[in-house]
């Protein structure tokens, strides 16, 4: 199973196992990562699963679709060029080792 690391704003890192085909958001919830709120349960409706993709993974992870792009502008923490909603990132083997930063708040 691919492993994904979440880096909290304070710097500590938390690694979770992620099921192929599931979303990064769900992997975070099931792995007990506290910085992901995901109020809507992964239906791209709330923008509370905001993450920052580390530079070296940007290409692999890809860019947001138009709806996600619109929503990111209204995330609780300021949008960066590497911002994504983690419910919209589907896990595959190629994302094994992915590192994501968590915002201060959702």
């Amino acid at each position, binding site marked *: 199973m691919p492993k994904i690391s979440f880096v909290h704003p304070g710097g500590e890192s938390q690694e979770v196992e992620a099921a192929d085909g599931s979303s990064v958001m769900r992997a975070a919830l099931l792995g*007990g990562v506290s910085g992901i709120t995901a109020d*809507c*349960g992964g*239906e791209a409706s*709330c923008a509370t699963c905001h993450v920052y993709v580390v530079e070296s993974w940007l290409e692999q992870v890809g860019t947001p679709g138009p709806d996600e792009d*619109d929503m990111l502008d*209204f995330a609780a923490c300021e949008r960066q060029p590497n911002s994504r909603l983690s419910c919209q990132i589907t896990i595959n083997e190629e994302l094994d080792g992915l590192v994501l930063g968590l915002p201060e708040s959702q």
Partner: protein
Amino acid sequence: MTAGVVIVGAGQAGAQLAMSLRELGYAGSVTVVGDEPHPPYHRPPLSKSFLDGELAEPELALRPEGFYRDRGIDLVTATAVTSIDRARNEVRLSCGRVVAYAHLVLATGARNRKLPIAAGAASNVHYLRTVEDARRVRHELAHACNVLIVGAGFIGLEFASVAARHGANVTVVEAAPRVLRRAVSAETSAYFDNRHAAEGSTVLCGRAVDEFRSDSNARVTEVRIEGRVRPVDLVLVGIGVVPNTELAEEAGLVVNDGIVVNAQLVTSDSAISAIGDCARYPRPDAGSDRLESVQNASDQARYVARRICQVDGSIADYGEVPWFWSHQAGDKLQIAGLALPMDTAATLGAPSSGRFSVCRFRDGILVAVESVNRPGDHLAARKLLARGALVTERQVREPGFSLRSAATAPRDGGTAKAHQERTSA
């Protein structure tokens, strides 16, 4: 162990409260008692991606099994709270256990309103609330040719889409003159009416089922609507919910279509709060409300967690902006704020394009926004409503207006202008 927080109900509200208490560092005991056999799970997908088969059952869990234990949350499933002893600050559970509380939170939720006729109990008449309900419906849908849906609210119409995509002949019967009447404007209703027709569903508004005909196996096989008899294999009833207030009533708390709470979500007993679907709370703009939504459950839970954990004893009243979402007919509908039927409407974008927002106004001021496939508008609207921005109907009707620019514009200018327009109106 000294008494801590006891939470009745392990749905979205109850689970969120337990999690928030621990996130805020609450050190006392936290006990969550739920009557369902499962740990807390997401309900919204039950009428959408779970029925479609896109989402598997294990993925419904709010958190993994060990999560609660690891955080010192005592999660008691398949168990009901049978009584509250307010004099002793104790609750009694169906297993016989007695748990003392310093603070009790009722998050008892709601149950489906049943059809008030004998056919309501037929074996192929279904309701959707629990994972068991959804499992049964999913199983039966696989073999159903003719599906009848009673009620054109969120649940009924979400199910209509799923059933139509399964290739069933879908008929929706709604007593009100239009679909989603409780939730949206006539404009948005008309859009979804068309969308469901395009998916092949027959939506009959202002109509009721005159007769359910059952066979000897107590299955509904035919219904009569306006004199016409239609064959039926599966009936789904989505006609609203009834709040679970019995426990509160028996304990002598004030109840009025919901457990009545004050602006800090405290019941008529200062040691007992109520949150989520079961709670009737005061709203500055609309008397009082009892909302049935994930947002309401989660935000009220977070609020009560903050209130319980606060040190200085002062916390502002609960006042989060309500929001809702629904996926149906391939569209994403999102609603920010609460409109009343008489509120006026102005549409941004063309419904024929499949991407538009209907802004709703009371006394010329923006109170709610219904967005179809415009999630940016939805979040912008939530931002505007949350900060109490006075956006006028006149502003919205000006050419070039966008919710996005209003939400990102420097605040003072916009608000001052709105004030001015309001006073000159």
